[in-house]
């Protein structure tokens, strides 16, 4: 579904990504972790072309992301993305947030888009908030709406960029629950997250990054039981200490 081959990216002399390669098959859930500044967010933003890269190739569902001729908008419409800071559109009600891209990008009718939006709101447990505005919801609620908004486009895969990092601790679980359910339903997912509990329960594979390189790319069990690199061992030791 997603193939990342030898992707490198630099700002001036600073190498953000160095020769990153991995593949994500249909239905797989991949957790990408690593210390801050290791390039994990940049890597998943490369997958839907939000960040350009200088060399290597990324192919999503048979379409090359780096190719200048690729219609990136069309590709992005099929790839859902959830951001650290939710990024709901503050001037639109929750309903409008869910409907707008469906009608403007997918050209669905208003009724169809509403229907879909409401079903997804139900699913994330926020039907009652439909008429409110993003600023009137809690962080956890906003992030659930953001997930629903991405799902409304019927994506072929979902990218999560630290979806729980900006949340109060008590709200982390409501978002993880939605993601877990999604994973169990067979959605292809690439998640940048530090939630190791989530990784342990639903991930198929864990990718560990450090200084722009993919240091480990292993099955979840192998990664947690026996990380090969020292850097990953240190990281896990710190993060799992408490």
């Amino acid at each position, binding site marked *: 579904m997603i193939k990342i081959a030898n992707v490198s990216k630099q700002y001036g002399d600073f190498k953000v990504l160095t020769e990153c390669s991995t593949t994500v098959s249909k239905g797989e859930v991949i957790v990408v972790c690593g210390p801050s500044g290791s390039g994990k967010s940049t890597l998943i933003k490369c997958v839907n072309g*939000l960040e350009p890269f200088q060399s290597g190739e990324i192919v999503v569902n048979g379409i090359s992301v780096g190719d200048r001729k690729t219609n990136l908008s069309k590709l992005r419409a099929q790839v859902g*993305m959830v951001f650290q800071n939710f990024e709901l*559109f503050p001037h639109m009600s929750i309903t409008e947030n869910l409907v707008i891209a469906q009608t403007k990008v997918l050209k669905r009718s208003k009724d169809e888009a509403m229907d879909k939006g409401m079903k997804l709101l139900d699913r994330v447990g926020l039907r009652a908030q439909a008429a409110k505005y993003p600023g009137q919801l809690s962080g956890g609620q906003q992030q659930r709406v953001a997930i629903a908004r991405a799902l409304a486009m019927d994506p072929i895969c979902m990218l999560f960029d630290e979806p729980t990092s900006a949340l109060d601790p008590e709200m982390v679980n409501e978002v993880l629950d939605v993601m877990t359910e999604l994973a169990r339903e067979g959605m292809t997912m690439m998640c940048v997250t530090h939630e190791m509990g989530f990784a342990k329960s639903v991930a198929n594979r864990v990718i560990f990054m450090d200084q722009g390189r993919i240091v480990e790319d292993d099955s979840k069990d192998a990664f947690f039981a026996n990380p090969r690199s020292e850097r990953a061992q240190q990281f896990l030791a710190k993060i799992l200490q408490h």
Partner: protein
Amino acid sequence: MNYQWNWGVFLQPSATGDDTYLGWMISGLQMTIALSLSAWVLALMLGALVGVLRTVPNKLLAGLATAYVELFRNIPLLVQLFIWYFVLPELLPPDLGNAFKQSHPVMQQFLSSMVCLGLFTSARVAEQVRAGINSLPRGQKNAGLALGFTLPQTYRFVMLPMAFRLVVPPLTSEFLNIFKNSAVCSTIGLLELAAQGRQLVDYTAQPYESFIAVTLAYVMINVVVMLLMRRLETKVAVPGYIGGK
């Protein structure tokens, strides 16, 4: 001081005989309002466009927009007015230049003034719009793009609606400025409010009454503008967001 106050002067028939001096003031006020409003429409449209272009990834477009802003922002308004009124008609193709010069003098003054004020203010509006766009969280653009919007759609549906809300207060001050700056157009003979005030002094030798009236008229315009803009601000306020409920 032996000044003879005479507020009744406004009701006296004017020197030209066809009006009262109050009538002069009112016609000046009308001219100021007509000029400023038409220039404002021009400034908003051009300013929004140029402000947006300053933020686009295309370097050529952004560069042209920057040049536009710097050009109109760095030449004094008065000089710009003289260029539009005295110089530009000479540079136009002969047909167009002659058509301009043969039009009614007031029309010439009004057109030059409107274009001058409009473009001058548009550079300032553009800067406000750019600042508004740049003050949005960067993720908003990404969120729009990630949903499959094209860049123009992302501006249209995601960034501009918020950016314009954010810049209502600074735009209010530009809107006020355009009324005040319109007084400069009296220098090319356009009989707007300030010019009528001075003319009234020439004919009646009552400078205090005249300029107090002019001052009050400007204050009145600005109070109305502020009230309208404040209503607009409340009307477009986003619930749960700064300034909203």
